[in-house]
């Protein structure tokens, strides 16, 4: 039992004291980072207020390209959010012991970034003041309503899934620090770490880890349905559900690697985010890389072979037309670079996985962009004016602002809560080493006494020469 502090003074946590450092001490670097981020956010707020006053005319959108950056951001950010909950849940269920230090940092990404995914849809609305019409007049026939439901469920579950494993750590903060005592006492929900509390908590966490997986898969499937349910060329595709989910996990792992590298560097957590973690996540990223490539090839080959004119118009726009730069950059950044780096042990270092992850995130943004925009750029009917979409300063500022706000919220989280789960690390030290030994033994066949007539020297009986 790791944190059983009943009445007696809490035992010191000197081994993991470094994890409380970011919460207890704040340096100039923090204020500098926060002010830079706030400046970017302030500019984005100004950009949005311009759009709010003048209408969506301040964007680069027009007929027929009705959707652009905002919808791309929406798909991209919700994709990133698959980092946390899904990866953490899978690792927990599989009992991957190396997860202990990284699950928290992954789960935080989910909850924080999902807000900006939703935020971008709201920014994209022509009449945000009428948002409540979705409740008053909601029509469940529209895939947008499906999204409202699935994202709400996902956000709620991810928040709970982040909060539950936080409770013992909040109790540590309550007992060991003088900072905001009332705040931590409230959030700790009277946690004392009794065996019963521990049992209940671990039970809930393992149940949630299982439920949250289908929820996460459904969220990105439903997002792909927004496109796939229309009859627009290269959107109307049954592969879109799994294609989006794979892309989401792909970019999610990449985002997690970047976040972990930053935390490791800023808070000197080399002991917690080891080379092993980056190596393992790098291998997961490599696997997703091939999965993503498989889906991309399936999607484009089916279109090409079918050779339907409306679809081919979009196809050629991507392969050799106005979106060729985006497309081929995507192929290089999503496949060539990460495979080159991650498939060799020599380059699968921390720096290597971080470079591959940055590359994947750029590529996945481009992927979302060339899913959204080209299908709209070439409508089925000939068109009087040919519009080439290019985002304006407003759209660029809002993208930068959302990214900055996400980073800011992440930074603030690390200043209020431990970004590495203290109790899970302690539990790993105190309990799991013995548990894993036991578990490993249970995987292996029991040594049995030999039945009569069989030599007790198995090698000899099988005719193996001594």
């Amino acid at each position: 039992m790791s944190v059983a502090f009943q009445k007696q003074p809490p035992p010191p946590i000197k081994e993991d004291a470094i994890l409380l450092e970011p919460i207890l001490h704040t340096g100039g670097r923090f204020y500098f980072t926060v002010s830079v981020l706030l400046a970017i956010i302030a500019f984005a707020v100004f950009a949005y207020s311009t759009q709010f006053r003048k209408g969506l005319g301040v964007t680069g959108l027009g007929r027929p390209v009705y959707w652009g950056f905002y919808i791309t951001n929406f798909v991209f950010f919700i994709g990133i959010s698959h980092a946390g909950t899904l990866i953490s849940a899978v690792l927990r269920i599989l009992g991957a012991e190396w997860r202990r230090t990284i699950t928290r940092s992954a789960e935080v990404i989910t909850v924080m970034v999902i807000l900006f995914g939703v935020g971008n849809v709201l920014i994209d609305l022509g009449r945000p003041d009428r948002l409540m019409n979705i409740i008053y007049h909601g029509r469940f026939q529209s895939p947008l309503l499906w999204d409202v439901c699935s994202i709400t469920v996902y956000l709620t579950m991810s928040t709970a899934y982040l909060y539950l494993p936080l409770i013992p750590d909040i109790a540590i903060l309550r007992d060991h620090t003088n900072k905001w005592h009332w705040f931590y006492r409230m959030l700790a929900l009277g946690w004392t770490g009794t065996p019963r509390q521990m049992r209940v908590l671990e039970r809930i966490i393992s149940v949630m880890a299982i439920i949250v997986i289908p929820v996460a898969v459904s969220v990105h499937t439903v997002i792909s349905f927004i496109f796939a349910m229309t009859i627009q060329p290269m959107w109307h595709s049954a592969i879109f559900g799994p294609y989006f989910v794979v892309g989401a996990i792909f970019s999610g792992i990449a985002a997690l690697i970047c976040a972990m590298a930053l935390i490791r560097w800023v808070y000197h957590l080399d002991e917690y985010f080891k080379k092993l973690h980056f190596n393992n996540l790098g291998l997961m990223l490599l696997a997703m890389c091939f999965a993503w490539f498989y889906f991309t090839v399936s999607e484009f080959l089916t279109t090409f072979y079918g050779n339907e004119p409306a679809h081919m118009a979009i196809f050629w726009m991507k392969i050799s037309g106005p979106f060729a730069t985006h497309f081929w950059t995507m192929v290089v950044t999503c496949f060539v670079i990460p495979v080159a780096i991650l498939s060799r042990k020599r380059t699968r270092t921390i720096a290597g996985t971080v470079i591959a992850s940055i590359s994947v995130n750029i590529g996945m943004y481009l992927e979302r962009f060339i899913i959204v925009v080209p299908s709209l750029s070439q409508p089925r009917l000939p068109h009087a004016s040919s519009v080439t979409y290019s985002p304006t300063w407003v759209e660029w500022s809002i993208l930068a602002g959302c990214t900055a706000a996400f980073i800011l919220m992440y930074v603030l989280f690390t200043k209020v809560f431990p970004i590495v789960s203290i109790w899970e690390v302690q539990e790993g030290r105190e309990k799991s080493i013995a548990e894993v030994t036991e578990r490993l033994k249970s995987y292996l066949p029991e040594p049995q006494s030999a039945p009569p007539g069989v030599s007790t020297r198995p090698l000899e009986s099988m005719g193996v020469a001594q």
Partner: protein
Amino acid sequence: MAKWGMTIDLDRCTACQACVTACQAENNLPPTGPEEADRGRSFTWMEMIPFAGEGEHPKVLERLLPRPCFHCENPPCVKVCPVGATFLNEEGIVGQIFSRCIGCRYCTTACPYTARYFNWTKPQWPEPMGKALDPDVSVRPKGVVEKCTFCHHRLQNARDNARAENRPLKPGEYTPACVESCPTKAMVFGDMADPNSEVSKSANSRRAYRLLEDLGTKPKVIYLREGD
């Protein structure tokens, strides 16, 4: 119950664009100017769509096709609207509730005919055009989607008149502005549910076809092929 529909005889159409202009005046479509039009922000509920011409320069036979909203019987735009701001009514008209639309532009991306328009900015009319607005049609605010309504307000007016005189609606009493303005009578409008109406007879022509018919949207605007 009437099913309103239209036929457009391309043998008769001279591409004079009277229908385009009549629609803009009738439905208070704001003029956007050439710069905004180049960015895809012009309003043309009735639009002339250019098809690839035949022949070589300078003797090219350009083909222009007048394209209103097709008021599909299976409208892809209506399906996707999250708030029911666009709907297919019993008489086959695909309407738009400007005051309910949240401006998500899902319908505009779902329409395979790109027949829907969005108010990117607050609509403005140069003086004195702003004083000549049609009082029967509401001016749309910024941020909502709009489209051809088959001049639905004309149906309401015609029905009010008929009701005042205590008689049923007569054929030809309700006609959209585009049809009324056509100098060559290329467009015929009326009740498709009535097999004896002029539009039904016209729609039974061997030359009749619908645009992108294979999509299964069942447009109620039917073209009569050029030739013979």
